[in-house]
């Protein structure tokens, strides 16, 4: 891909259909931070697309996202992330913040 940015994608089989919901956006793309967008996809997957400026952390992302999926097991959710070097703890908290806002008015 483009020099400097790393694009990662993960695909999990979901067990809990999320149904229809308005897109949710939390966080900001700033140093040590990230934005997370959740959208309804209508299928039975939980697909995650990550664009990050911190290259070489694919295994760490997998661990954080597997942990997220183990907690929620969403089906029909598309997760899109723009990251500027957030730590795993910050990523986990942003994902939970996004889930908390699903179905709430923005």
């Amino acid at each position, binding site marked *: 891909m*483009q020099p*400097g940015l790393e694009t990662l994608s993960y695909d999990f089989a979901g067990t809990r259909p999320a149904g229809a919901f308005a897109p949710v956006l939390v966080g*900001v*793309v700033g140093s040590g931070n990230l934005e997370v*967008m959740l959208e309804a996809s209508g299928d039975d997957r939980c697909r995650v697309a990550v664009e990050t*400026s911190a290259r070489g952390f694919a295994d760490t992302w997998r661990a954080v996202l597997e942990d997220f999926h183990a907690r929620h097991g969403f089906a029909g959710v598309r997760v899109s992330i723009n990251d500027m070097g957030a730590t795993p703890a910050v990523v986990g908290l942003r994902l939970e913040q996004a889930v908390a806002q699903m179905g709430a*008015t923005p």
Partner: protein
Amino acid sequence: MISYAECSARERLARVLDAGSFHEWLPPAQRVTSPHLAQLGVPSSFDDGVAVGRATLDGAPVFVAAQEGGFMGGGVGEVHGAKLVGLLRRALRDRPAGVLLLAESGGVRLHEANAGLIAVSEVMRALLDARAAGVPVVVLVGGANGCFGGMGIVAACADRIVMSDVARLSMSGPEVIEASHGVEEFDSRDRALVWRTTGGKHRALAGDCDALIEDDVAAFRAAAIAQLGRPRPLAVDALEAEHALLAARLAHATADAYDFWREIGIGEPRAVPDMTAAEVEALHAALAGDA
């Protein structure tokens, strides 16, 4: 009390506008993102750092934009600028009661240099077109990144400017001045100097902003409602008055805001930084009454 400075752009929209009234155009899910940043290895943002849309403010239909200072310092790139221009041009067509710009920006996004510069100039033109058509534009400044560079000029083009005491508004930012003219000219790490040169209190006393408030989202909402009802007609006599104000300022060849404050009639300029916003507003009103 909720700090306006500590809110994100979207939190500000939720709290300044009528609850639940914001309808976004080009929302993040449409992914209208920067065509330039990825080539430089910089992550994009789904909204390119600005949310635009329509809403109501105290029941009145308004168009609104909020810049996210956390993304590239609120820098205006090609898409970011185009969203602002589109909002203002739509205001020209649809004639809302006003346009609110929740500005937080270091100016042009240097990664997109020429496109960003052109975008800012287009924002200015679109803003002045809206004003000329009778649609007032009110700028709210209260983010931690201030309002600098091209967005500082955009703010100065508006009908009214609202600032908090932690807000900053200027053209060249402190680091830019220090880099180009040396630390003897301006020490960008001297926070007290930076704030008394570019901060809300100085802007209020100099007549560069129309309302000075505390760093509180409810105060910003109240001030936005009040200023929306005070349009400043874009006419020759108003421009000439502005030019006279600026020409008179050149007579103050002072090295520091303290000297400027003394010259405009403030007996104890060193007391100003510790005053509340309301005290500074009262002081400014008293000075204006004397003049």
